[in-house]
């Protein structure tokens, strides 16, 4: 088959030959085909797409019907029962309470940062054997005296109360804390911290602050305010957090709390970020140094066993014990700019006198009663007088048996130092300084100092 004619002949043969199957054969074949089951007859109308879309539409419809109903039910329940206590924070919820219920300020508030303020319900499940008479007592008291805190607050939302460990209110007769949103509290916190910094009561707004209100006075980190500051902060606090005896303001970078501590160590009051409570150990330790951690409590309800558990930030440290401060007035609480100026002048003076080199701007200035020693070298009388004038007269840092000034490019430390080079009390500014006993100041890492100060015995 080479030509087109032969191809045509082949096609013609295929076209003209009878088919492989006759019509009768196909008819018999069709008759043998299985009939479609009745349930398959309409099933092809349903495919995966239609099933998915129908399911989504039904779930949206059901959710739109049931969710509003559920929300209404949650708002209506506020009265504590023997089985559960429900506490509401949202103002809208509080306003919806019946008139027989406590005022908004008397209703428990529990505000957590990052969570919506509206319709925030905290439900604390209590076991059957919880003594709820305390709650009833609190409720009756709120009508008579309008106390500030009828609050039950745990560090973490939803944390389960331990049986018979419900905190009893200790604060009475206080003006109530007006309800504020998260934004309002944060603004108040910021203003307060800046005001404290301006008044040199704290050195940084990042510092942890504990404001106590003993009878007739206000203490900020253990420092009692004078009359001027007392009146200023009384007015300042009264607008947002009225000060009263037994009320504390606990402020850290992550946490803000205004309320009272119970004997058991619970903190009750208005707070932001209660989950950050571990950072407040230092405050609790100062208030309850002998507090014992109960085995019944969860880690969320952490209490400080002793003050030793408190860890001090190694950046911009101030170690000032109030009693020590009163006994030794020679150690001033200096502002950071003033410390920086002192550092700058001291370094310039030391360079000028060739006591340190430009490549090695590190120095330890020991201010003894009888002499001034710079990097282990005692100064002559002329230089000593110059340095005493600069340090003691201009900046108020007097001499003492352990008084030293540590200078390094990144920090300055002024205070009393122990035999191991650790700062016992004083203040520092900058970075990379080490104040602990186990790892003393980085200045001692210098080889010359290691020899002079017999560093081997530290290791």
């Amino acid at each position, binding site marked *: *088959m*080479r030509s*087109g004619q*032969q*191809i045509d*002949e*082949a*096609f013609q*043969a*295929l*076209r003209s*030959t*009878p*088919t*492989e*199957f006759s*019509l009768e054969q*196909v*008819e018999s*074949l*069709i008759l043998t*085909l299985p009939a*479609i089951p009745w349930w398959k007859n309409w099933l*092809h109308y349903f495919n995966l797409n239609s099933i998915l879309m129908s399911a989504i539409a039904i779930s949206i419809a059901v959710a739109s019907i049931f969710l509003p109903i559920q929300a209404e039910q949650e708002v209506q329940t506020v009265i504590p029962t023997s089985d559960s206590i429900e506490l509401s924070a949202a103002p809208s919820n509080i306003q919806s309470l019946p008139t027989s219920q406590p005022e908004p300020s008397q209703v428990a508030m529990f505000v957590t940062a990052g969570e919506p303020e509206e319709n925030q319900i905290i439900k604390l499940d209590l076991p059957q054997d919880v003594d709820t008479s305390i709650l009833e007592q609190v409720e009756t008291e709120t009508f008579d005296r309008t106390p500030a805190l009828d609050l039950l607050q745990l560090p973490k939302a939803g944390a389960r109360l331990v049986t018979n460990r419900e905190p009893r209110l200790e604060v009475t007769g206080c003006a109530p804390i007006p309800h504020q949103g998260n934004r309002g509290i944060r603004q108040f916190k910021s203003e307060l911290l800046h005001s404290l910094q301006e008044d040199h009561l704290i050195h940084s707004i990042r510092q942890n602050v504990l404001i106590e209100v003993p009878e007739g006075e206000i203490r900020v980190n253990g420092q009692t305010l004078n009359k001027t500051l007392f009146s200023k902060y009384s007015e300042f606090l009264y607008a947002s957090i009225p000060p009263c005896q037994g009320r504390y303001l606990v402020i850290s970078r992550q946490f803000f709390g205004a309320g009272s501590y119970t004997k058991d160590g619970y903190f009750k009051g208005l707070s932001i970020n209660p989950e950050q409570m571990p950072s407040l150990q230092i405050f609790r330790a100062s208030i309850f140094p002998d507090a014992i951690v109960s085995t019944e409590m969860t880690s969320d309800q952490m209490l400080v066993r002793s003050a030793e558990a408190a860890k001090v930030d190694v950046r911009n440290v101030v170690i000032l014990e109030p009693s020590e401060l009163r006994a030794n007035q020679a150690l001033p609480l200096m502002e950071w700019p003033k410390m920086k100026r002192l550092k700058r002048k001291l370094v310039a003076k030391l360079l000028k006198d060739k006591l340190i080199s430009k490549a090695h701007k590190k120095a330890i200035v020991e201010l003894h009663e009888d002499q001034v020693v710079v990097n282990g070298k005692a100064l002559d009388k002329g230089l000593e007088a110059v340095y005493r004038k600069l340090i003691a007269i201009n900046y108020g840092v007097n001499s003492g048996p352990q008084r030293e000034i540590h200078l390094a490019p990144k920090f300055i430390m002024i205070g009393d130092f122990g035999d191991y080079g650790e700062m016992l009390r004083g203040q520092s500014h900058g970075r990379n300084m080490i104040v602990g006993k186990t790892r003393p100041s980085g200045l001692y890492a210098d080889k010359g100092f290691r020899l002079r100060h017999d560093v081997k015995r530290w290791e």
Partner: protein
Amino acid sequence: MKAYASCHEPFIRYCSALAYGKMDTEDLVQDVLLSAFQHFDRIAKKDQLLHYLIRAARNRSISQWRKRKFKTEWVEKHQDKLATQGISPELQLDIDLLYRQLDRLPGHQRDALILFEISGFSMKEIAVMQNSSIGAVKTKISRGRKQLRQFMQEKGQSNPLANVLKTVQSIVV
């Protein structure tokens, strides 16, 4: 069955051409008819049942036999059937070669050629089936024939005698 009766002959011829050397024509016909029977309600235009059958047969051939080669057993079976239909062995050899070269053509050209030359459809009908114009169908058929003729000549020149003898032997046996 009434709808099918008018489609029977071209449909069977088309299926025979598609199934040649690859599988049993009966299987293909049965598959397509079963599919048509089950989905008969979904066929919008009942008068175009033939189009549906042709398209279904082509799709099945594409999906199932795309990579299949010619198998001797199927070739023999089809040759037997041709013999029973009164085709001479010489013509059977030509038909076998024709089918083999048809399989080498591009799909659209092969379909158009089979539908036109074997099933006996008109150009217009093929155009409707393939959703194209008459001119396009003409082009496909023309190019397909030209290509087929070229394949045949190449085959005749390069085909060793042994292959031809083997084919003849299979036909005789």
